[in-house]
């Protein structure tokens, strides 16, 4: 990746964080912690990896993304707005009765959303179905599913993992946002799921591991996944919940809580400082 693209992606990820925070604050509700941890992953997917066209959001040949950890919709909606699927101003209506931005992704009403999700464990199955359809139709689109590491406690995830391996879905890539936290605390305490690499390997998947905040590494892993044949690929992306806002980082308490006005100003200032620096560097 050249320096220009890296800078551009880093800047976009900072904007995703900022817009997600604004949306959650405007709604006084929403899941900010996981939105901040998944921001870099979604940015690379939409702005480096995936072939999608905001002018033709349902093109049959497009790549597809299922946000299986649907509660981090603020980051998804922000990425879609920045990509041009709808105006950024509409994000003010996140979770609002006046808008159509449901708390969890809604494919019927929001352009660019490929699958309605929110009930954990279900999105990956739909993504497997999309990848199966791609194989059946001999199309070359790729399908991505983004999961949380708490989410994979759902048995359905492993049902889907077996099915993806059975059908040799090498057009399918799952990315697990491994931030180590879920509502009730550390995943290691609530329901230990490690070693995830060995689990997926034993389910006959290709396994890649990256720092989920290293944009170049995420992009390289996704590029590599596209070349791996015969099996689906999982990218285990180690992340920090609340990444980018000092007082939210690694705190399970920020899973599903909106900041108050004072907290918002502090968070916004931190994210704005990063944005400002990146924008200056870009000039």
């Amino acid at each position, binding site marked *: 990746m050249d320096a220009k693209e890296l800078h551009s992606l880093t800047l976009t990820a900072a904007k995703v964080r900022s817009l997600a925070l604004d949306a959650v604050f405007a709604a006084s509700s929403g899941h900010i912690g996981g939105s901040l941890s998944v921001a870099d992953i979604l940015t690379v997917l939409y702005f480096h990896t995936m072939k999608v066209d905001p002018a033709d959001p349902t093109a049959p040949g497009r790549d597809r993304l299922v946000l299986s950890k649907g509660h981090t919709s603020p980051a998804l909606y922000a990425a879609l707005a920045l990509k041009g699927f709808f105006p950024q101003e509409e994000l003010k209506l996140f979770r609002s009765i006046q808008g159509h931005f449901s708390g969890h992704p809604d494919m019927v009403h929001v352009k660019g959303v490929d699958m309605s999700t929110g009930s954990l464990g279900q999105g990956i199955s739909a993504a497997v179905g*999309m990848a199966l*359809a791609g194989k*059946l139709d001999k199309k070359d689109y790729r399908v991505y599913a983004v999961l949380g590491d708490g989410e994979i406690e759902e048995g359905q995830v492993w049902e889907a993992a077996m099915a993806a391996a059975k059908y040799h879905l090498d057009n399918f890539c799952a990315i697990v946002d491994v931030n180590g936290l879920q509502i009730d605390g550390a995943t290691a305490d609530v329901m230990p799921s490690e070693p995830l690499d060995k689990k997926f390997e034993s389910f006959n998947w290709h396994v890649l591991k990256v720092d989920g905040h290293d944009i170049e590494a995420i992009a390289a892993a996704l590029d590599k996944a596209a070349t791996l044949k015969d099996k689906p690929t999982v990218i285990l992306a180690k992340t920090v919940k609340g990444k980018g806002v000092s007082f939210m980082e690694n705190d399970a308490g920020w899973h599903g809580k909106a900041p108050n006005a004072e907290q918002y100003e502090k968070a916004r200032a931190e994210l704005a400082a990063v944005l400002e620096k990146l924008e200056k560097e870009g000039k």
Partner: protein
Amino acid sequence: MGEKIATRAAYGKALVALAEEYPDLVVLDADLSTATMTNGFAKAYPERFFDMGIAECNMVGVAAGLAACGKKPFANSFAMFTVGRAFEQVRNSVAYPRLNVKVVGSHGGLSVGEDGATHQCCEDFATMRSIPGMVVCCPCDGNEMTAAVKALLDYDGPAYLRLGRLAVDTVTDAIPGYKFELGKGVELREGSDAAVIAVGLMVQKALAAAELLAAEGVSLRVIDMHTVKPLDTELVLKAAEETGCIVTTEEHNIIGGLGEAVCACVSGSCPVPVVRHGVEDTFGRSGKAEQVLEHYGLTPEGIAEKVRQALKLKKG
């Protein structure tokens, strides 16, 4: 009366028969293809058949993904598992995003027989009709099932289809002008004293009940309500107005099924007595299918008794 065939057998044949006409039709099963009778399709069209193993929740989700890419998936297992175990997947991954998935529940009701209560789903109408936008369909015989599969392929949206295990008499082929239309019931027998509104294999038993009652001088109208949702309210209200009392009969809990749907319909527009016949809020048990049905009163005589009750409640 036509041949005796289980609706699941007619369903399996219909899938194969319609496969060429509907190239987007794909079939999923959860290790029960020999029982749901999707095995014929699996053999004829292996590339369009997906055995997802004993994992119904994933199967329904995969079907949703296939539908999101333009396929017309039929996802199969026993009713207990497609709509029981995978209820939430049907609600959130299929119905909420309005995806074109046909959720199929074979072995509905008590007529599963020997397998017993764990496999006798008498809650599927209730759960499926409570989901916004779901169509709920349960044909009474092989002839009706064949037509229903085609109608469901032509219908773009989420639907639930119940199949029966037991071989049943074909009755709809003898009806002059019989035409299957989703959401439209069929009057199989004229009658003026009372109307029985039946679904699934209770349709045949309702016709037998009409014969029993005819001997007592009672003229019983028999309506085959193959689509439980959306309910054919026009036909229900016509029966209420013209006969003055209704009995509903279903191989399902009397809570939440056809009976309650009919009650809701008449209570707001033409309040006449409605007596519900079905499984009286209890679990089933093992036995030969016909013995189990008899044990729970799902017989022509059981229906006739409810009609006598309804007639007593009738005004005037």
